[in-house]
């Protein structure tokens, strides 16, 4: 998970609970996918209670990033390739 610091990210939520993070994605982003813990987003294995929602907004990827001392951050990162890769994994049941 070492590359977050090198990303150009925007923090949408900080020190949130996992449930707050998931609710925020479902409320604010009509397009999202559900993944299992350990699923890789960028070089990060996401942490959380399954299913974990990953939001998609055009070329932006919105995902939870959990640290032991700071709870869950909800990060928004622009990356055309990663957004396309994640869209390709859609099961169809969770995303509009």
């Amino acid at each position: 998970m070492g590359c977050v610091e090198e990303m150009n990210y925007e923090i949408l939520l900080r020190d949130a609970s996992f449930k707050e993070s998931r609710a925020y994605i479902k409320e604010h982003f009509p397009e999202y996918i559900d993944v299992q813990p350990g699923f890789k987003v960028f070089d990060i294995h996401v942490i959380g209670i399954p299913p974990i929602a990953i939001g998609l907004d055009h070329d932006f990827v919105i995902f939870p990033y959990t640290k032991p001392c700071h709870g869950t951050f909800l990060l928004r990162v622009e990356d055309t390739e990663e957004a396309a890769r994640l869209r390709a994994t859609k099961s169809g049941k969770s995303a509009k």
Partner: protein
Amino acid sequence: MPDDTPVQPATALLVLGCPQVPVQTSIALYLISRLKKAGLVPVVAGNKAANTLLVIADPDRHYLGEVMDLDRAVALISEKKRDFDRCFVFIHNDAGISYAATMGVISKAKLFTLVYGEHSDDLVQQIEFPCTTIAAKAVHNPLPLKKALDEVKPWAV
């Protein structure tokens, strides 16, 4: 023909939380000691502060064996490069619940959750995945959590 393959000892991963609650370091060393006496090989995974507290407390490594970065442990297990027989997740906040749920999905280990701190009762209510929960409202005094551990004896399961 006899099988000469050496039997590998069982392994246990201790997933540490934020070390802001004092009992964590004490209980981690106690649990490591009990696991080693029972013949298991304990491995610790935590963030830098949690790991350093243990390493400084045990400079001659009487108790500690392998210590690794928590993110690296999650990556290795997620990528099926490594796994453990038992996994103990230390929980005193929401992040701890998230890490425990993650271990329950990515690892085949028998999962134990050690829940402590001011909000231990609320946190126990949030655990809705299969595991054995060991809980006590312990913040500074590790004895209530030690007592709960001794009743379950997870090293002997």
